[in-house]
């Protein structure tokens, strides 16, 4: 089995030595050869370029194995992205809803916002906030710009044959418009006179206007609120949009006195107190003082009412978000570990398979660092592809979530860079041990490996 294609080198060699011998060889020969700094610099680039090519070839050669590991990484990255996306969606929608409460508005209420657990038992025996408190504030508090008592319930609203369920019914006074951050679209708002005489006037939100008066003028029309009450529409409100997946515009506003007559006089109120910007703290102190006096609380007694601000909701919300965050981080760490172990596994197999290659490369002059770079590149490429696919899947999930659920979901560039960068780091961390084990193989043993 000789090689007929390759002729014996003897005949032509003595007369025509290949040009390399005479020209190229001499300058490279010499004592104690050393690489210049520039050559060392270029060597690193050449090694990395070679490592990337080798890694891609290796992954293509073992498609299934690579695909499984990559899918592991991408599912992990996707899960983390979805969690943080939902989280930021919740936060964004909450912040928007919170804004609609107004930063300078205090809410006097039986309950303290953002409080649960043991405190609940303490608070449940408090007297409800009622009209007496409202009158006391109206008469004695000087700092507030506006004071608006609000009672609310849910009821069915109907007109002729049509009815709309789960409508937010609020009984209040003129100040509600300012305190609640609403804008009047047409007609007029409830006046204090309406409250005093208990008129049947009402103002409706944009959802109801759409439902009942699509093709006509709402003003002056009669609607039925709840089982018995009939009201006349005197104004309509500008659409406010969704908060927390719920429309805020399915709303009927009526005079407080009329509301209490229809839905029961013992209902607790929330009194919205609008403070001047920058004077929120003073206003809060004054409100507390006025209410303590009105309720005849002694100096040793605790407040039996709460003055809530939006930042108190924020506190409760932040607590919830912290839990969600913690769960997200935990899930992220677990999926990262699982994906990382997958990378480690594929890399160990690769090192095992290529032990001889490692020996060959070492014999040809690869340093330990070169071998390390080679396998780290492979790990990072697997992780990077997985991360990119994961970010893609995450973006798809975001689009789907945005389309199907009320939580607004979007993917921002920080998530993309974070996902890609994170997977890179993941690959490097979990690839380190296999790569080190490859780098520290003894060249002779690696060459003998079968």
């Amino acid at each position: 089995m000789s090689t007929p294609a390759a002729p014996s080198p003897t005949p032509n060699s003595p007369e025509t030595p290949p040009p390399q011998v005479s020209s190229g060889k001499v300058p490279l020969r010499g004592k104690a050869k050393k690489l210049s700094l520039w050559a060392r610099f270029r060597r690193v680039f050449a090694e990395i370029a070679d490592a990337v090519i080798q890694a891609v070839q290796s992954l293509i050669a073992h498609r299934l194995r690579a695909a499984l590991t990559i899918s592991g990484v991408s599912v992990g990255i996707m899960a983390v992205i979805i969690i943080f996306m939902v989280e930021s969606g919740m936060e964004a929608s909450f912040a928007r809803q919170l804004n609609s409460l107004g930063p300078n508005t205090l809410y006097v209420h039986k309950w303290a916002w953002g409080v649960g657990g043991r405190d609940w038992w303490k608070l449940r025996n408090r007297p409800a906030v009622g009209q007496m408190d409202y009158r006391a504030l109206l008469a004695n508090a000087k700092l507030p710009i506006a004071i608006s008592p609000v009672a609310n319930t849910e009821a069915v609203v109907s007109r002729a044959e049509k009815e709309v369920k789960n409508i937010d019914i609020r009984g209040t006074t003129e100040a509600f418009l300012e305190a609640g951050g609403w804008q009047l679209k047409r007609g007029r708002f409830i006046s204090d006179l309406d409250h005093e005489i208990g008129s049947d006037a009402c103002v409706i939100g944009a959802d109801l206007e759409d439902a009942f008066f699509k093709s006509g003028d709402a003003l002056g029309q009669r609607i039925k609120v709840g089982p018995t009450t009939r009201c006349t529409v005197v104004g309509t409100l500008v659409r406010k949009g969704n908060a927390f997946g719920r429309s805020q515009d399915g709303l009927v506003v009526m005079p407080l006195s009329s509301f209490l007559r229809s839905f029961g006089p013992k209902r607790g109120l929330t009194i919205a107190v609008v403070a001047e910007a920058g004077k929120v703290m003073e206003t809060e102190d004054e409100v507390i003082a006025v209410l303590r006096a009105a309720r005849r609380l002694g100096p040793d007694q605790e407040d039996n009412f709460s003055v809530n601000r939006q930042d108190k909701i924020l506190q409760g919300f932040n607590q919830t978000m912290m839990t969600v965050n913690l769960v997200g981080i935990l899930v992220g760490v677990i999926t990262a570990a699982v994906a990382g172990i997958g990378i480690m596994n594929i890399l160990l197999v690769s090192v095992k398979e290529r032990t001889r290659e490692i020996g060959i490369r070492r014999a040809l002059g690869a340093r330990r660092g070169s071998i390390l770079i080679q396998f780290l590149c492979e790990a990072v490429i697997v992780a990077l592809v997985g991360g990119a696919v994961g970010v893609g899947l995450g973006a798809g999930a975001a689009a789907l979530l945005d389309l199907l659920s009320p939580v607004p979901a979007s993917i921002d560039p920080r998530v993309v860079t974070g996902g890609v960068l994170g997977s890179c780091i993941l690959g490097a961390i979990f690839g380190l041990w296999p790569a080190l084990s490859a780098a520290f193989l003894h060249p002779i043993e690696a060459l003998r490996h079968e």
Partner: protein
Amino acid sequence: MALIELDHIGKCYDLGLSKVHALKDIHVSIETGELVAIVGQSGSGKSTLMNIVGCLDVPTSGRYHLSGRDVSELSDDELSDVRNLEIGFIFQSFQLLPRASALENVELPLIYRGISKKERRELAIAALEQVELADRMKHRPTELSGGQRQRVAIARALVTQPSLLLADEPTGNLDSRTGEEIVRLFLDLHSKGNTIVLVTHEPKLAARCPRAVRIVDGLVIADGPGREVALANAEAMGADVVAQVLAAEAAAASHRKGAFAP
């Protein structure tokens, strides 16, 4: 100063319970341009010696100077650089990367030298031309015959223009005719000024080298013209080897005439 100076080299493997002295006291020097065969039975220590000469391993005692530089106490990275810059390896089992083409295999050592892609390609093509395989450079090792694979390996060793070509049983995996081609390639490379160290257990290969060093039990017991060392070795091994040596001489004679050996 000689290219290779082995100064009382010893190599001892500590196996825990016992110590194995693979090399006891090797004292050899090889000049630039020499073609030297290192012969010995398996277990004689010749592979260990080759690993040390090739800077894949370091001796446990003695000094080894390569191109005037003491390499017996270099760090791992420095040894890697010495291997890349000074030594061209040729292995019995070729040791080519199976997934890479002949050309890519030959380019491989140049990567560790920071040579640009274009220049790597040029040098590799030139080296493949030198072993007359330029027409096969796109083939993978599996698509080449044994002799062709060994030529690729030789081209890979030549491409760095090393001070020393180090071949470990280069004809061991080849049939006799292909082996003869490879031997002639080595003789040819030697005639062009390359320094070559061949490690072999085949007397007929040693007999054709100008110089041979025979190693037994980690000691140099003969160092002289290849024919004499091979014959002395043959005496120790039995008469049938004498026939092999004589056959090798006949082949060498025909080589000198430039005819093709049957």
